[in-house]
């Protein structure tokens, strides 16, 4: 089975289950790094994947599994290895990637709502780099802006088209009444 994993801000793979287990064992892949294969619905921290439980490095990292261990755990209880494991990983937040709205932006632009479709497209391209660099809040922000501009573009585009059609209807009615 092919596995993908997030490593230093980039998605890597595919690798076999044995290879990924070895990467996990030797510490290349940290417990909170996200992994995924095609049978899974979401990217998941490897520490939570049963298939790799036996490959877990001997450390207390697996015991607590809160969503944001570094932020949530009090300093005194947080083992140093945990902070080290969490900090450099793109999966830092342990949160799923926000939607990019890429195809929605393109659909909106193809439906002739051009001026507002452009910022939608620009923001949609910013979601993934921000997420992969570990800046979850920036990714979420870009995702929300892309969504906002998609909706604005669609609504304003439809309103403008409706006005055009209405004008044409009046012109036709005027011609018919002559």
């Amino acid at each position: 089975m092919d596995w993908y994993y997030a490593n230093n801000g980039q998605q890597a793979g595919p690798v076999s289950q044995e290879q990924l287990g070895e990467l996990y064992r030797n510490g290349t892949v940290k417990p909170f790094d996200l992994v995924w294969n095609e049978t899974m619905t979401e990217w998941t921290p490897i520490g939570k994947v049963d298939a790799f439980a036996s490959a877990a490095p001997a450390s207390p990292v697996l015991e607590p599994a809160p969503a944001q261990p570094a932020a949530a755990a009090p300093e005194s209880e947080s083992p140093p290895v945990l902070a080290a494991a969490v900090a450099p990983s793109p999966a830092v937040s342990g949160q799923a990637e926000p939607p990019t709205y890429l195809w929605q932006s393109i659909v909106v632009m193809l439906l002739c709502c051009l001026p507002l479709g452009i910022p939608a497209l620009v923001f949609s391209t910013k979601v993934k780099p921000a997420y992969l660099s570990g800046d979850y809040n920036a990714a979420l922000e870009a995702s929300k802006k892309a969504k906002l501009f998609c909706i604005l573009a669609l609504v304003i585009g439809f309103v403008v088209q409706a006005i055009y059609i209405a004008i044409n209807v009046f012109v036709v009615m005027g011609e018919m009444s002559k």
Partner: protein
Amino acid sequence: MTAASTGRWVASGAALALCGSLALWLRRVDLAVPPRFLPPCVFHELTGLYCPGCGNTRAAHALLHGDVAGALRQNAFSVIALPFLVYFVWRAWLGWVAPKLRKPLPIPIRQWHIVAVVTLFLLFFVLRNLPFAPFDWLAPDPVTRETVG
């Protein structure tokens, strides 16, 4: 089935019926004498330039008559993108009515995929406005009133 999911199926059916009726209507339209109700492209009206969506109506008309080549001639980007868009809309819809049935994408989307799609899209926008061969083949064919979207 909960009330919410029943509502979603009803809404989906209504949307499908609306799209189907629009398609049947568009199929019967004679583009040589286009009805005034067909929306023109506002961007084209205002600037004289072709937007990335110009020719979509004519392309849809051609597709509804089974004329893929004719559709490509009107808006190559939209026609090539259509199967992908249908797939993404299908996934979005599945996530809406039956999230458990939706599997992740077979290939995780990477940064260069996004860059490639956006680059192609903007390139298409620029190239179709160049008034000489072969690029003028990317512009819609004015078989009819120029302003039909």
